[in-house]
Each structure stands twice: as C-alpha cells, then as structure tokens.
C-alpha cells in the first residue's frame, strides 16, 4: 500500500457516522439477555417486601417440587462461598461499612433485597416457583428519612451502632489553599451579605433502558460471565477478590450494553448469585431482571440534603462558602459509595474565586436501595448547590445573575488557576462561552419579553435560568486516587495490533455502552497511524481480549483511554521504524513518519506502515537483534483531571393558573476542548441535558412510610418522553486541555451536571414575583401551582406514599400486601 500524494483530511474533527449503528439499527445485537447456551438454567429472585426485617424461616419445599425446578437456594445455602459486594472507596480509614452479602441469611436491610433464588429450566417456570417460596419475616423498625437517620434514631444496621458511615472534610485553611471560612462568614455577617439555604437533591434512578442481565457459563477451563455492566475489568477483579476463584480462571464479557449512566458501575448481588449458582450446579445460568426489580434493587443516585452558607461583600464578591452535606447511601455502600458525594468537594466552588471554603460531608445509611454513581456523580449536586446560590446572591443584590457570576469567576487570562479547593484548572474561557450563549439565546430580548409579561400580568410568565458550570472528570490520576484511599488506580490501557492484511486492531480497556468508542477511537488511531478509518477495528469489553483496563465512567474514556491509544500507536511507529529503515536500506535517523508512511528524508524512497506490518508478519528479513513484531501496548495515567465548562441558559414558561412549566428554549455553549467527533459530542450533550432537566422537572424515587419504593415501575417513575421535551441549541467554544496530547476534555456528564440548576433557576425566576423563595425538585405542575397559590414552603414536600387508587375496594392498596405468602 502506498500513501496518496494528496494529504487526506484528518479524521479527528469529522462528524463520522458511527460504526456501531449498522448492527444496532438492524437488530443484529448482542445483549446479554440474548444469550442462550446448551442446558442453560434460569434464575428468579425472591425479594423482601420489607425494608428491615429478620428472616425467621424460609420454606422452599413447594418451590422445589414445582415443574422443572432444578434447585432453590437461600442465604444459608450460599454462606461465605457467595462472596461479598465490595466498596472500593472507603472515604476514611475508619469508615463504618456494613457487610454486604449478596443474599443475607439473617436480616434484610431494604425492600427488594434478595432472600432466595429459584433455578428452573425456563425463566417462566423459575418465576412461577419463586411465588411459592414462603418466607416468614420479623419486621424491624426501618431507618428511612435521611435527616432522622443521621441522628441515629433508628439504626439501618443495628450491629454497627450508627448510621453515619464517615465524616469527610475539606477545609481551605487547613490544607493551605485558602482562608478560614468561619472568619469569612463572620466578616460578612458584620459588613457584607450572608446567604444561608438548604437544598434537597431528590433521589433519582439511573433507569438505563436495558434491564441488567447476567449469564454465567461454568463449563470449560475459564468461568465466563457475560453481564450488562460498565465495568467488566473491575468485575473480574472483584469476583476473584471476593469469591476465591483465581482471576486467571475468570473471563468477564460486557457485550452490547444498553446504557449505564453510572447505574451499571456496580458489583451486584444478582451477578454474584448467578455466579454462585452456575458454579454450584455446573450448568450455564441466566438471570435477567424485570424493570420493577431494576428500579427497586439497582442502585439509585443523588439523595442529599445540602446546607450552604455563602459569604459575600456588599458589592457581591463571594468571600467564602461553607457546605454541609448529608448524603443518603441507602442500605449498603456500593463500589464508589461515599466517594460520590465527596467528588462534590472540589466542585462547589465551581468556576469562582472564593477566599475561603469548607466542605463537610456525612454519608448516612438507611433502609432503602443503595445509592451510588449516577451520571455526574457528586458534581451535579455541587453544581446545583452553587448555581442556585449565585442566583440567590443576585436576588439579594438586585443584580443580573450573569453579572454576579462574572464578578466572581476566573478570568480567561488567569489559567492555569488553582482553586480554593486545591484543584488546578488547566484552561477555560468563561467569558467567551457566556458571550456566545447570550447571543444564541437572545438574552436581552428574552429579558425584555419577561418584563413585558410581568407588567401585563400575563397568566404565562417567563423565567430565565443560568448555569455557568465546570466539572472535574477524566477519572483519574492514580496518585490522587491513592491519596483519597480509593482502592484502584485511574489509568487506562490500550493495545494496537498491526495485522498482516493492513488492518489494525485496537484494544481498549474502556468499555463502551452507547458512547461510540468504536467510531471516535478509530478516528484517533486512523490519524495517528495514517491508515483508513474503515481499516481500524476497536475491540473492547471482553477481559480475555482486553486483558487490562479500568472501564467506562466519570467521562474518562476519551481523556484517559484516548491518550492510551495515542501512546500505543506512537509505540507502534517507534517499533516499526528500525524495520522500515532496514527494508529501505537507510539509517533510522534519516526516517520520518507522516500520514502512514516512513520516508527517507530528502529522497522519494519510502514504505507504508502497513507494508512494514506485513514484513514483520513474514519476518523473512529484519535487522539483527530486532524482535520481529511491531504491535504495542501502553498504559496512560492522567496527570490531572479534565475541566470542561460551559454556559447554559434556559427559558421556562410557567402557566400560573395550572402550574405547568414548559421549556421554551435551552441554549448551551460547552467548552470541552478539542472535539474528536462533533456528532457524537452533540448526542452526549443532548442526552446529558435531558437527564439533568428530568431531575429538575420530572423524576423522583419515592418511598412510603413502610420503606417501599412506590415509584417502582415506569408507570410511577416518570421518565420524560419526546412529547415532554424540546430540541436544544448547542454550540462550543474551544480551550484545549493543556494536560493531554489530544487537547480533549470529558463530555459524557457535562449536560447533566449543568442543566438542572439552569431549569430550576428559570422556574424560580418566573415565580419569585409571587413571593416564592425556593422550590423543591421535581418542579411538577402541582408543586409549582402550590408554590404560587398556597403557603406550602417550596411548593410542598413530596408525599411519601403511592398515588391513591381510584377504587379503594381494589387490591394492591398496601405496599407489603401479600408479603410472606
């Protein structure tokens, strides 16, 4: 193959259509639940209807005797052999961590916890027999309310003696990155402005579209697990570490995975139980959850109370911020666990220059589903808190909220900038993003319309909401993780294999589940090696192919995994060079590599890298002492986090007569550094925005006073539909990252992190005129109406109960009805 004379346009930056799509739009997919193996058995779980109870007895006789049932196991049968679901990030060395057995034998700690598993020849027979398992429970008082649980009134796990898992603090004075926050607040009380607010981050459910599914095949030398997971490599490590099976005997495969959003960043009881049953019975086993099971037992997200104290001068310059967080972890501490709220520690100060800062966080156990990473993980909560506070400050000052932000933000010529929290932001330009967003939005015109509607007493009022966010992503520099007591590193791995036919196989340790890695990574490698985009194949998600990796979460795949690709590709070029020189009968030092071709400087002699790959394959002719082969692998450890930012502007129309909040316009200008594929980026932004908007307007996981999730189906947990939403106006400014070679910043979580406060600020901006000072999320029509027309503070708290049934004589009125039957 010879290089063309014309310089091809670089792949990076092209809006390539995705390589993944052909199979996905034709149904030629590999979802875990599609897998059928010879003799495969099916699992159905028996789950506790009680939030907290002792297991008195379990009668499995009827289930055992049912048609085609092969086995029934309880927690006693599984014992120690089942392993544990581990927490990888104890945030302090003294963290109080409940033992998390996948199937407990003695006591259940949340409604939905598994107490028995039925194994049968078909899924339907397993489900039928599961209904025959008779469990006797002795109900215990349940810790449900977050604030009450923080007072240890009722214990989620009595043997621990407390619900408080840890206390984690970042103090700018103590760590030397800023002043004393109490002094700043005292000074502001005397001579400036102090704003104190309490915000609620309601509990959300990631609600990936593909329900979780696991298949375990124990036949053969390696035990193979297919799972709908974001983290095949971490899963493999944790299976080995907690079940005693040598890691070398374990193969984990994440095939096509239907979304995750952090919800599949977990080691789950369902995976561990399927693993146990398959090994015990020696037959392949499958478990696929129902949507309702997914909602009650897969981990939830957010769920915080935030107490914020902001100190400012009379002019509006913020001098200090104090954050007190209570974070609900639910019944168990998941893989990231208390690390999720702690990630907010570096983000409450956001894009601003504060003199003093303090972050205090207490993660609390309750008898509800566990809480762990959900898109943004700690950073949406922080961004909501500070962006709501900046609006409150603007109201207090009677100034435009953008003006107040500008007064406080880091200027573009101040980068790199070390914040009061101690993070060093490499690059950014808040002025540029804001100017562009204002223009796209028609900020001044919409403000004029808002005034006109107010003056006219229009029943539909207009509100404008702002969020000038930044976030830290690209998890993460390994040394930093080590200093935070995290159980692993934050590097990523890649291998580039040069095939003799000229094709290139690239193996990444990142594990895509909708992000488009196969496309974007192909673009990066195509440019680096000078080979056609179509000739690059990206392999991932199978630990036997991708032997080393740390998977996909925290907007890390491109900014960490992409850099590993660059390193590996550059190594291939370096390894190919001596062989190219040998074949060209030239000196290595006289070779240069460009667009896929080694040429001898000053001559027209050259050879393509794919021809070198073929020569390496044949190995008929290579230099003495050279190892025949040019494949290479690399591990990249990031030197810093990634700090994308952006300005988001939202216009909401509020019907004051019905309380309905309708989105009129949403504009965002995100600065995510250099863009590999603008089409994929747009998709990430749109989807991210929607999840943040959904928190503001639609979603909430609600428990009743018995600890039952009453929003436990898609009838009750309100995901937005196409009809509830609008098309967005998105654009970018570009401040390339200075800490990686591609100049990229993460984008996967940005939209979700930014959008929630923009929407809520807009809703409040429309209804403050009616004396409304704050409103809880989600801003449902009922809540908005109550906020305007009643004295219910913040529009009234969510009622912890199921929506009433129309006919009270109908069954299904009680959430624990049928328990134990």
């Amino acid at each position: 193959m010879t290089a063309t004379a014309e310089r091809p346009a670089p792949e990076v930056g092209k809006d390539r259509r995705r390589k993944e799509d052909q199979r996905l739009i034709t149904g030629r997919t590999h979802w875990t639940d599609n897998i059928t193996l010879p003799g495969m058995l099916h699992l159905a779980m028996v789950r506790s209807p009680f939030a907290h109870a002792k297991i008195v007895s379990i009668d499995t006789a009827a289930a055992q005797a049912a048609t085609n049932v092969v086995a029934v196991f309880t927690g006693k049968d599984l014992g120690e052999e089942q392993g544990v679901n581990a927490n990888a990030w104890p945030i302090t060395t003294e963290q109080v961590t409940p033992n998390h057995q996948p199937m407990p034998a003695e006591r259940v700690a949340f409604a939905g916890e598994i107490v028995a598993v039925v194994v049968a020849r078909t899924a339907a027979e397993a489900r039928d027999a599961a209904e025959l398992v008779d469990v006797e429970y002795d109900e215990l008082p349940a810790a449900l309310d977050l604030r009450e649980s923080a007072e240890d009134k009722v214990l989620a796990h009595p043997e621990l003696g407390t619900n408080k898992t840890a206390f984690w603090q970042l103090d700018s004075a103590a760590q030397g990155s800023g002043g004393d926050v109490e002094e700043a607040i005292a000074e502001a009380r005397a001579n400036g402005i102090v704003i104190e607010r309490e915000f609620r981050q309601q509990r959300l459910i990631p609600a990936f579209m593909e329900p979780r599914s696991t298949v375990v095949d124990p036949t053969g030398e390696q035990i193979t697990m297919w799972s709908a997971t974001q983290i095949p490599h971490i899963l493999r490590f944790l299976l080995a570490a907690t079940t005693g099976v040598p890691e070398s005997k374990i193969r984990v495969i994440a095939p096509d995975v239907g979304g995750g959003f952090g919800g599949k960043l977990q080691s789950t009881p369902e995976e561990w139980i399927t693993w146990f049953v398959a090994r015990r019975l020696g037959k392949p086993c499958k478990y696929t959850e129902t949507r309702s099971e997914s909602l009650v037992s897969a981990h939830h997200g957010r769920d915080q109370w935030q107490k914020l104290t902001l100190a400012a001068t009379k002019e509006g310059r913020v001098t200090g911020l104090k954050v007190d967080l209570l974070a609900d972890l639910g019944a168990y501490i998941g893989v990231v666990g208390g690390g999720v709220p702690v990630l907010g520690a570096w983000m409450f100060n956001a894009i601003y220059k504060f003199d003093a800062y303090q972050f205090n966080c207490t993660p609390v156990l309750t008898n509800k589903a566990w809480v762990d990473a959900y898109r943004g993980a700690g950073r949406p909560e922080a961004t909501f808190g500070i962006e709501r506070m900046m609006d409150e400050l603007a109201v207090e000052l009677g100034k435009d909220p953008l003006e107040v932000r500008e007064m406080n933000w880091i200027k573009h010529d101040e980068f790199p900038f070390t914040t009061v929290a101690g993070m060093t932001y490499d690059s950014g330009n808040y002025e540029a993003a804001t100017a562009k967003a204002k223009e796209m939005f028609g900020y001044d015109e919409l403000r004029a319309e808002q005034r006109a509607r107010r003056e006219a007493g229009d029943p539909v009022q207009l509100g404008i909401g702002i969020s000038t966010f930044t976030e830290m992503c690209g998890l993460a520099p390994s040394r930093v993780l080590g200093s935070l007591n995290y159980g692993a590193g934050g590097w990523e791995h890649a291998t580039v294999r040069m095939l003799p036919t000229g094709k290139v196989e690239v193996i990444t340790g990142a594990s895509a589940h909708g992000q488009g890695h196969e496309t974007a990574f192909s673009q990066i490698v195509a440019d680096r090696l000078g080979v056609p985009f179509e000739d690059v194949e990206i392999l991932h998600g199978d630990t036997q192919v991708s032997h080393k990796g740390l998977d996909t979460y925290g907007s890390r795949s491109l900014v960490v995994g992409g850099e590993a690709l660059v390193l590996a590709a550059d190594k291939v070029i370096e390894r190919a060079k001596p062989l190219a020189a040998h074949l060209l009968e030239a000196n290595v030092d006289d070779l240069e590599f460009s667009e896929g071709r080694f040429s001898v400087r000053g001559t027209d002699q050259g050879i393509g890298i794919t021809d070198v790959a073929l020569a390496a394959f044949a190995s008929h002719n290579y230099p003495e002492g050279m190892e025949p082969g040019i494949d290479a692998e690399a591990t990249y450890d990031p030197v810093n986090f990634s700090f994308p930012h952006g300005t988001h502007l939202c216009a909401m129309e509020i019907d004051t007569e019905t309380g309905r909040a309708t989105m009129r316009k949403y504009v965002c200008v995100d600065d995510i550094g250099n863009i590999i594929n603008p089409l994929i980026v747009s998709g990430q932004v749109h989807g991210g925005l929607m999840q943040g908007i959904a928190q503001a307007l639609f979603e909430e996981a609600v428990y009743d006073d018995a600890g039952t999730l009453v929003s436990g189906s898609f009838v009750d947990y309100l995901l937005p539909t196409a009809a509830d939403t609008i098309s967005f106006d998105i654009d970018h400014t570009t401040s390339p990252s200075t800490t990686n070679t591609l100049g990229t910043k993460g984008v996967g979580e940005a939209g979700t992190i930014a959008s929630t406060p923009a929407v809520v600020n807009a809703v409040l901006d429309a209804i403050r005129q009616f004396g409304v000072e704050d409103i809880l999320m989600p801003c449902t029509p009922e809540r908005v109406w109550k906020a305007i027309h009643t004295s219910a503070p913040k529009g009234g708290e969510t009622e912890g109960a199921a929506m009433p049934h129309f006919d009270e004589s109908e069954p299904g009125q009680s959430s624990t009805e049928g328990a134990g039957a």
Partner: protein
Amino acid sequence: MTKISLTVDGTQVSDDVEPRMLLVQYLREKLGKTGTVIGCDTSNCGACTVHLDGRSVKSCNVLAVQADGHEVTTIEGLAHDGDLHPVQEAFRECHGLQCGFCTPGMIMQSVDLLNDNPHPSEEEVRVGLEGNLCRCTGYHNIVKSVLYAAEHSSEKAGAQ
C-alpha cells in the same frame, strides 16, 4: 399448549405455545428474533415495538396466540436485500441512537408514524413517539431522524 401459525419477517412459522406467552417472548425465545427487546414490564417503554399486519404494536402487550394467522414484522425484517429502510438510514445519518436498546422499537414506531403521516411537524413526531422511551439521546436526534426520513425519502418511507 396452543398451536399458532404466522408470518414473521416474511417467513412462515408454526409452534405450540403456552397461551400466556407474550408475542415478544415468542419472538425472542422461540424464534431467536433477539433484535426485538424487552425494556419494561408495564408497556411504558416501547422497546419491544413491532408491526402486526403493518401497524405498530408493543409486542409485550400482545399474546403470541393473538398473532396466530397474522403477519409480524420486526426490526430484523425491515431492511430488504441489504438495503436499509429509509428510517434506519435516517437514524444512522442523524445519530438517532446511542446505546441502541430503544432503537428497534423507536424505528418501528417511527415507520408506523410516517406511514400515517408522511410529512409530520416536529410536534407531531414528538407526540407520535410518546410511547417509546429513550434514556440516551434526549430525543433531540431521534426527532431529527424522523423528520430527515420524511424529508429525504417520504416515498420510500411509506413502503413497508
């Protein structure tokens, strides 16, 4: 067990099924038509949408026995002779999918929508897709895909 005979993606099939078996279970478990997927258990998500005699149905809401004697088209039967259906093509062109799990249902519903209304407005597309949930795209590019399909190939999109 009840014997049913039907046409799926152009092929005659016949099986004994339990009367309670859902059409989606029949497609996936008996026929291996795993392109059609199950996303919920309350008929909210629409991931399992197929065509029954040319109209979209949620196949979790149809019993296999109800499909007896009828014609079913799944996402796997939409492309012909290697040519993608214009709506499939539009979803790829406009990046109307990310993880792809809702996509089979979303495409089947979009085809039905365009059969009914070959030139929908954005609002009509949004309302027409209300029964199909997506968690990745924020619907932005899905709506764009349907409008693109309508604009670029309305004559073909109308054909089955």
